[in-house]
């Protein structure tokens, strides 16, 4: 299976700068790099994930994306907090707690990896809803669906909603990621 490597950047939505930048990004990546998506051993995670690339041109509202499961070890969370410079005293008092943006970042990464996104895709908006504090070394399951898909002026606007549950199926974090994708 050949998969496009995904480059996602955040830019002012719809601006001339965004379009020019994306055109340059696309032109630099004429040959999609083949990347094997497999169990992703990131610092945060050891994931078991069904990796079936989604065809962006056939996305429909309500369509489910591949399920993702992951855990966040204490060490990985420590690295994340160091990377973000998070000094909130809560995590010093309760060292097993996971910053919610760590969970969201990992879920979003898996979602983007599972979608057959072309070069030049940009992350334009993000919603998060935090329902329950999550502890380290807890198995999390991420369900995701296409919430919105529209094409206009050579761009796909796609929103992906996701819900992350712990092993008791209790919701922990949910969200909506909005992406601007150049139409092929």
């Amino acid at each position: 299976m050949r998969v496009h490597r995904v480059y996602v950047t955040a830019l002012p939505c719809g601006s001339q700068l965004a379009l020019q930048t994306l055109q340059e990004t696309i032109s630099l990546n004429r040959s999609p790099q083949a990347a094997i998506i497999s169990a992703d051993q990131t610092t945060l995670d050891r994931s078991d994930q069904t990796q079936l690339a989604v065809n962006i041109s056939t996305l429909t509202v309500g369509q489910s994306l591949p399920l993702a499961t992951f855990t966040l070890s204490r060490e990985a969370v420590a690295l994340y907090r160091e990377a973000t410079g998070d000094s909130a005293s809560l995590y010093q008092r309760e060292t097993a707690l996971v910053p919610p943006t760590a969970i969201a970042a990992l879920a979003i990464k898996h979602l983007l990896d599972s979608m057959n996104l072309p070069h030049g895709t940009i992350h334009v908006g993000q919603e998060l809803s935090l329902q329950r504090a999550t502890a380290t070394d807890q198995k999390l399951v991420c369900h995701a669906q296409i919430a919105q898909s529209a094409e206009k002026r050579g761009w796909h606007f796609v929103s992906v909603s996701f819900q992350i549950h712990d092993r008791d199926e209790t919701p922990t974090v949910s969200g909506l990621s909005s992406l601007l994708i150049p139409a092929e």
Partner: protein
Amino acid sequence: MAVINRDLPILKKCVTQEQVVRYAEASGDHNPIHLDPNFAAKTTFGRPIAHGMLVLAFISEMLTHAYGRAWLEGGSLKVRFKAPVYIGQTVTASGALKSEVETVNSRRLIYRVTCRTQEGNEVITGEATVDLPEKEKTKA
């Protein structure tokens, strides 16, 4: 017992290349636009930019400082990524209370949240809410 903040405690972060490299390792996001100056130089950005989710983490940290567990168990964010943050820029995260809404079992605080560069440019704007489970004293 949490106290309601009219203004969230401001957070200032200087985004360094080292931090972006660490974030790439921690998050698994190795997009070269964040990591490779040669790659970034050939884009309109001209130089590496920070991950949007890294900058969003600053807003979440700000709310964690203010409300602790209440943020983790009853918070929400809705933001737009308006502009990139370049390596070397200092970003200030801030939030101002817009309104308070009484719900059945809690009080919902609604903040306007912003991240700005030292030049004053908004890079992230949006809204954050925190549901506090009990009535609290309003801080002047």
